[in-house]
Structures are given as structure tokens and as C-alpha cells.
């Protein structure tokens, strides 16, 4: 049985002035799926992701999260929608003036209006899930990059999102710290979280992705299973990209 899409992007277009950044993007991410987006920098991957919770306003097209058309929501009603779409950034963006625990509690209390003790319990559960229960009282600056990113994942998970967006979650990390973040993402996948991931971790894509999207110049150039994309690329653009990546140029 085919599961319904949790996230659907239909005819998405984005322009900055005269520059077209995204052209007619169509994509469905079904429940429990991990969809991977690859492509050279400047191909529009991150912009597409940021349109999914309207950190970036789409120029035209529709984005649906569980049948709710988020592109139709008035700006002032965006906050509720955003809790359903968890987002993890390349630069972590933990709040440096708050403890790890407070970082994970803040939006639960302010946006979700959860009672404080409930938010704390939830925050501790999420920190345990990313393997950082013992760091609850630490400040972000005391953590390694990998630990900070795992806290950022916990912060998003605490709001019970329907889908998680990852914007190059490991690109800012030292190589030896990448594994700990990927492991958390693998765990999430096993637990059935729906995920859309922009990343350069090709080995991870091969291993964990259900589908891979290759974007270039604001277009989806190819999409398919990891075996198809990595084993049997159809277009010259994808072939060139993959060979550049394997040489470590991207």
C-alpha cells in the first residue's frame, strides 16, 4: 500500500528579483520516507527546503503538509504550521544564552503552550533520544559541533513535527563528528520519521535514503532510488556531479 504524502511540493517556483532560483519543482515525501536532495551549491536545494516552512516565500506553486496548504496560510498564522515542520540548520543555531535543556524547552512553552514540567520531561526524553541526557545543564558553547547539532535535532523533535527538514546538517562539522549526527538521523528513520534531507553525505544517502533527488540550476534533473541515482545516472549533469563529488571537489 502506498502511504499518503506528508509533504507535497507542487509547481514550486522561487525568484529573487529577475533570478529564477527554483523552477517547477514537484516532489512528494510519503509518511516514514527519507528523501535525499543532492546537487551542486547554488542549485536551489536549500531554498527549496526553506520554502517548505516559508522561511523563504515561494513565488508561486503550492506546498502541502498533511493536506494543509501551507502556501495559503496568512503570515500571522504561520507559527502553528512551523511547529509541524521541524528544521535543522547547517549552523545549528542553538541559543547561546540558554542551557541545553532550556533550548529544547523554549518553543514547547512559548509556541506550543505546554506546561513547564511537561516541557521539561519531553525535553529530557528528546535529549536522551539523541544521546545527550547528561548534557542537559551544559551551555551550548561547552558542546562539540556534533553535540550541538544533536541538541538542535532534539529541539525540533520536541514539538512533535510531522516532517523534519535537514539543511546540510553535517556540512559544518569536523569529519569525526559527522557519524554521531548521521546515527541520530538513522535512528529517526527507523522510528518512522518523515524526512527531507539536503546533504553531501553520499554514503549516507546510498545507505539510508528511500529516494534521491538531484537538483541543478533550480530544476529537479533526476530522481530515483539510491541504486538508480548512484549506480545508473542518466544525465550528463548528474554524471559530472557524481564524479566531482567522488574526487572530493563538492
Amino acid at each position, binding site marked *: 500500500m502506498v502511504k499518503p504524502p506528508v509533504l507535497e511540493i507542487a509547481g514550486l517556483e522561487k525568484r529573487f528579483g529577475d533570478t529564477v532560483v527554483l523552477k517547477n519543482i514537484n516532489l512528494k515525501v510519503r509518511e516514514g520516507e527519507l528523501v535525499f536532495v543532492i546537487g551542486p551549491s547554488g542549485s536551489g536545494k536549500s531554498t527549496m527546503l526553506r520554502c517548505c516552512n516559508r*522561511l523563504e516565500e515561494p513565488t508561486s506553486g503550492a506546498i502541502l503538509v498533511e493536506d494543509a496548504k501551507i502556501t495559503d496560510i496568512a503570515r500571522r498564522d504561520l507559527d502553528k504550521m512551523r*511547529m509541524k515542520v521541524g528544521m535543522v540548520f547547517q549552523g545549528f543555531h542553538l541559543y*547561546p544564552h540558554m542551557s541545553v535543556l532550556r533550548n529544547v524547552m*523554549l*518553543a514547547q512553552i512559548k509556541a506550543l503552550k505546554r506546561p513547564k514540567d511537561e516541557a521539561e520531561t519531553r525535553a529530557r526524553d528528546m535529549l536522551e533520544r539523541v544521546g545527550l541526557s547528561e548534557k542537559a545543564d551544559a551551555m551550548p558553547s561547552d558542546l562539540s559541533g556534533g553535540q550541538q547539532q544533536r541538541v538542535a535535532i532534539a529541539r525540533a523533535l520536541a514539538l512533535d513535527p510531522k516532517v523534519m527538514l535537514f539543511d546540510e546538517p553535517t556540512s559544518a562539522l569536523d569529519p569525526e563528528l559527522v557519524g554521531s549526527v548521521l546515527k541520530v538521523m538513522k535512528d529517526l528513520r527507523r522510528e518512522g520519521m518523515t524526512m527531507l534531507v539536503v546533504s553531501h553525505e553520499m554514503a549516507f544517502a546510498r545507505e539510508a535514503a528511500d529516494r534521491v533527488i538531484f537538483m541543478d540550476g533550480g530544476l529537479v534533473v533526476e530522481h530515483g532510488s539510491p541504486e538508480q541515482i548512484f549506480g545508473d545516472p542518466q544525465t550528463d549533469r548528474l554524471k559530472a556531479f557524481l564524479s566531482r563529488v567522488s574526487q572530493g571537489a563538492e
Partner: protein
Amino acid sequence: MQDFIELFFNLDIMAQTLPLLLKGFWVTLQLCAVVIGLGLAGGLALAVAALSPSRWLRWSAIGFIDFFRALPPLVLLVFVFSGLPFAGLELSPFMAVVVAFLLNNSAYYAEVFRAGLRSVPGGQAEAARATGLSPTQTLASVVLPQAVRNVLPDLLSNTVEVVKLTSLASVVSLSELLYAANMARSVTYNSSPLVLAALIYLALLWPLVRLISRYQRGLAAH
């Protein structure tokens, strides 16, 4: 030398005029509480407006800030107190000072807040908004605390300036510390009350100035 001490450091006269000066000091403190509070609030509002995506709001705020930073506060105060009555708006000395200082202080605090808000990386607000925090919640819980921490020495310096500037209120006969001291001087034909007033200002502000220096050195050491 004896004359010098007699004229400027006459302890008898200081003791005699101290109650009057303390009364004035109390008015100065009340004035400070009001104008600093209003200045901070107005400054924050202006700073947020000056960084707003709305061009109209941004330019109005920047125009306001520039205008009142360029206008000498004494000119502003005399205008509010002595100029506005011609338009039928008569304010008490205290209210005149409050209004003039609100306009002047907000502009100065706004510049400090603006620098502070801009020093916080954009990703912070973005991360907060992505978790469903409203713009106001994002400002109050995430951006402002970091902004204030980044410009705390400047905020304190500006506050020291404001406290010193409250002595301008003597011009509109508000019986704050300087006014009281000058009254005492003219009654006693002796400058010691003025010296005493200066010492009171010093006692109030010196710890703050020291704190700012230490804080700035601390920042430099990082």
C-alpha cells in the same frame, strides 16, 4: 589655602545645606528612573522600527533618531518648556524634562539597541521562527537577551550620560540636585554646596564607570 578650603570645602556649610541637597538628589533619582525607563523602552521600539522590513517604518525611525541625536538636548528642553506654551501646551518642569529626555534618550538608546540587534546572527531569529515562535517571542526570548549582552557596556555608558544630563533640568527650575546646590550657593555665598553636589554625582556614577571599564577590559581579554 585657608581661603580656598573656606570657599570650596567648608564643612559647616556642607553640613548645613546637606538636607536641601539630599532633597534635590531625591528628585534627580526620580527623574533618572523615569527618563531611563522611558528612554530604554522608546529606544528599543525605535531600534526595532529602524530594522523593520517596512521601508516607511524604517525611514521614519531613522529620521527620528538622526534628528534628535543632532539636536542639542538643552535646546530641545528649552523649546519644550518655554517654546511650546506659545502653542498652548504648558508643561510642568518635571514633565518638560521627561518629554525632552524621552525624545533625546530614545534616539541615543535606539542606536545602541540597533547595533546590539544587528550583532545577533540572523540564524538565531530564523531558528526561533522555525520552531513556531512569534516575532515578539523571538525578539524577547532569543534576540534581545543576546543583543543586550553584546552592547551592555554601551548601554551603561549611555545611562551614565543620561544621569549627568538630568542636571540640565536646573535650567527649567526643576529642583533637582544641581538646582538645589546652586540655590544653596547663592544663599550661603559659598561654593561648597556645588562641590558637595559634584561629590554626590561622583559617588553615584563612579562605581558605574568602573564597572563599565572592567567589563570592557573583560571583553577585550576574550
